[in-house]
């Protein structure tokens, strides 16, 4: 517990001073605000470019605007989150920063859990906040489709589960291969490659990628299977990291 406490506090200070909080928050909040505004302005922008009024063809409603934010979260924000977190364990091992903590008897489980819990909580809070901000602007700028705030929060929960899986997968690769950027690239490759499995119905339904579909549907239908996968995978990834951190030679 003492290791968890020390590392949790250290992670907060680190994320503030190395601007990790700002980077993640800036990207998620930026798209939450800019997406609905740009979508609203899109017909006018296109009209000024093409001299044609296409507003009758380009009807954007509340649902489409919210889905646009989910698309940006998946395509862009996910990359930022993975790359920001990719050095969290590997770089510390490689740079010898664990020498003093290990020589004081710190627990590998405490280190892994503190780092994982810290980023899961932060990304979770910012994602919820991003959805709420986005919902506020969308409902203000677009015609109401009847999507309730509860549905948006369910959608946010799907995205958060997807991010949680990616955070832990990134940390695990970072711990195993001890190369931060390489770990991030591997995770992003696996993540975007899994879209190609969409046609394999039986498998795809259990993949974390399925959570993006459930987020887009604003309902919890189909969320159970990938949620089970994510929970089991996260437990396994944490166990792998703790094992690896107990075996690693930190000099």
């Amino acid at each position, binding site marked *: 517990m003492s290791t968890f406490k020390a590392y949790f506090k250290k992670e907060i200070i680190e994320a503030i001073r190395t601007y990790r909080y700002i980077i993640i928050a800036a990207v998620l909040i930026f798209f939450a605000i800019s997406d609905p505004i740009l979508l609203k302005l899109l017909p006018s922008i296109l009209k000024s470019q093409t001299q044609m009024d296409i507003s009758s063809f380009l009807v954007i409603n509340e649902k489409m605007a919210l889905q646009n934010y989910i698309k940006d979260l998946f395509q862009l924000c996910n990359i930022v989150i993975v790359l920001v977190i990719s050095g969290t364990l590997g770089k510390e091992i490689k740079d010898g920063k664990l020498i003093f903590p290990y020589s*004081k*008897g710190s627990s590998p489980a405490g280190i892994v859990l503190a780092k994982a819990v810290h980023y899961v909580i932060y990304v979770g809070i910012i994602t919820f906040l991003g959805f709420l901000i986005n919902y506020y602007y969308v409902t203000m700028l677009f015609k109401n489709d009847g999507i309730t705030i509860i549905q948006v929060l369910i959608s946010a929960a799907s995205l958060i589960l997807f991010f949680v899986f990616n955070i832990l997968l990134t940390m695990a690769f970072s711990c195993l291969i001890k190369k931060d950027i390489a770990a991030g690239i591997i995770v992003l490759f696996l993540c975007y490659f899994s879209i190609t499995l969409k046609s394999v119905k039986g498998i795809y339904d259990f993949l974390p990628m399925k959570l993006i579909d459930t987020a887009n549907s604003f309902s919890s239908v189909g969320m159970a299977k990938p949620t089970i996968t994510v929970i089991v995978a996260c437990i396994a990834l944490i166990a792998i990291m703790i094992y690896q951190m107990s075996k690693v*030679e*930190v*000099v």
Partner: protein
Amino acid sequence: MLTVNNLVKSYGKLQVLKGISFQISRGKIYGFLGENGAGKTTTMSIIAGLINYDSGEISFNGEGFKKNKRELLRKIGYLPQTPVFYGYLSGYEYLDFIGTISGMPREKIKKRSSELLELVGVKEAASRKIGGYSGGMLQRFGLAVAMFNSPEILILDEPTSSLDPQGRMEVLELIASLRAEGVTVFLSTHILNDIERVCDEVSILHEGKIILSQRLEDLKKDYIQPIYDIEFEENLGNLSEAFKKYSWIEAVKQDRNSLSIYVKDVNRAQQELLNIIAAFNKPVLSFSLRKSNLEDIFIRLVNKNVNI
């Protein structure tokens, strides 16, 4: 206090430690000497719990290291050769981090931080981020971190290597003062003078084996050997050969115009050496008696040439 028995460590096919054994008694300062790559840092890293070992036994106050590793590490302090910290933390924040890991209460952390930062001379910089510290400050701050949990044994891997002469002297004085407090120190260094100044016992590690382990005083008694250094005005040619017929002379090293004569019998040397030199009829610039120091002993032992 600390007993290491038949410790073996390999990296792939390379066996770095080939079954080393030694004992460190409570309150002693134990010097660890060896060339680069001899296995000093590996040994220290194993005892500090940073790397695993293949076989052998380590016990601390009679308790086995493998079974009670985490508990025993709380009684050990370790300063690596190049200490690395989280550069974005201040000195106080880092010590708070270490204190929390060690399970110390907040008040004790504050008190201990203040004491140690004062002791190692980094108190004025302790509110600044560690990333801005100089090499010497990092080494001193590392010493404070190593000592933070009031360890029973302090493992110091080349603690003075990046310090200026003044800083070196202060750290050595600090190490010597720890003896009075009953702290055991396990010290490795390349600076043999440091070992001579503070250590009670010394081990010499060579190619993964301990080739000598002795009290420093006994070591000097056993290996000390008087050497006569004679400097001549002109080139000596093959003069060294002429000394080999004397049984009381162990070895002769010849430079261009100087000789170092290692003698077995000082009394005979005092009586006969000047006469022998005078017989060569070569002008002498200087004649002095040198007593071999730890550096000579170290070089002789690791070169497997105890005669020179």
